[in-house]
């Protein structure tokens, strides 16, 4: 048995264009002063499909990184250099947060000082036992 599927007009909030403009201005500030901007996509009312539309417009770039820390996180540089899409998941791969970061590299990708210190402790133990 088949059921006819009607494609209805999509609901929209009108927030896609203004958001893209915000990204553009943030990119300008990044270049001029190094200022980093993070936009929390959860804080904006977006109709079903609008988030995907934003992703589609920004496109995919050259960098795709994955972090495994308290569940996976996906960091993708979009087709616009300096505009990154960061998605945090929990251990059950449910989305915790989605952000557009306008920066040279998202802070979560950098190795943290505290972790480097722990790493040095591990190295010392490693070298002593070799």
């Amino acid at each position, binding site marked *: 048995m088949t059921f006819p599927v009607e494609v*209805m007009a999509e*609901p929209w909030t009108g927030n896609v264009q203004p958001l893209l403009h915000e990204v553009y201005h943030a990119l300008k500030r990044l270049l001029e002063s190094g200022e980093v901007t993070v936009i*929390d996509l959860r*804080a904006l009312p*977006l109709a079903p499909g609008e988030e995907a539309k934003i992703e589609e417009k920004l496109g995919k770039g050259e960098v795709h990184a994955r972090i495994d*820390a308290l569940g996976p996180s996906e960091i993708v540089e979009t087709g616009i250099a300096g505009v990154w899409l960061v998605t945090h998941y929990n251990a059950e791969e449910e989305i*915790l947060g989605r952000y557009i970061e306008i920066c040279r590299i998202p802070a*979560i990708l950098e190795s943290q000082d505290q*972790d480097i210190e722990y790493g040095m402790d591990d190295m010392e133990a490693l070298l002593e036992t070799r």
Partner: protein
Amino acid sequence: MANDKSLIEILKNRGVSRRAFLKFCTTTASMMALPPSMVPAIASALEKARRPSVIWLSFQECTGCTESLTRSHTPTIEGLIFDAISLDYHHTLQAASGDAAEHAREEAMKENYGNYLLVVDGSIPLDNPGYSTIAGISNLDMLKETAKGAAAIVSVGSCAAFGGLPHANPNPTGAASVSDIITDKPIINVPGCPPIPVVITGVFLHYLTLGTIPELDELGRPKAFFGQNIHDRCYRRPFYERGQFAETFDDEGAKAGWCLYKLGCKGPVTYNACATVKWNQGTSFPIESGHGCLGCSEPNFWDMGGFYRALSEPILDVHRAAGIAAAVGAGAGLAVGVVNQMKKKRAQSKHETVTVDDFKEEA
């Protein structure tokens, strides 16, 4: 019991890296509806945070709020939170029961007097205390006794915050909210039927990270989550502005996702985070799923005239039903219910479609 270790030490001992901690702080900021720029401040506060003791009391409730919290879509984070907050008593969740559980509560209260967080779900019956007791102690007595040493009280769910369903007309148990009874402690109301899971968690996190009560509105609700109304954040608002309304749940307007105002949506008078934070791991919320907002985070939402009656409609049917009820000596609700049941039975036998308008005409 409350732990002297800071959260950062607890995390380190569990092998959680600084990077993972930053991820936790980032998603915490999002959960608390704070801007990403606050992440460093949250990280700094959490690093130094000590674990507060929490006592959770459940009164006249359906357990939906506890269910909502334990279904929080961040189980790893929630595990950390519960590790971080030291839940000393929750008579629904804890393994111990009877005397052992009550001793646990009393010990926690004594050891952390003046510093524990008291969480309450469910309303408190003021008529016959027998309506709801725990270990033979009435809800009213247990609340008063436990509130004495609390630093602050969180009323989780509309029942604890405003009286909720038990409080609905005619309020047979004399249900009251926590703030009706306790007037000398800071109270944070986290209403909703149930509240969104991450809203509950977000309030705990705020207390944990900043050690303070979040900024509250005139109904004692955290402004971070209840500061904007559903209507203002609803993605269907453009349809409202253009006068495009769904008239029934299955007409072309409904299928096109038009505004649900005429189908009883209480979005314009409801303050909550549903339209942005959403439900079920951010999947959707009632309006997005095609059903109007019930207004469940507002006081007396059960008595707001009906879930399927538009806000602009006067509540005539209830008065007419009350007139019928007076004539036949039955309760007003019973009269409307009987009429609707008759209509439904007739429709079922004839396989007719029954709409909301049919019920309105009948009444």
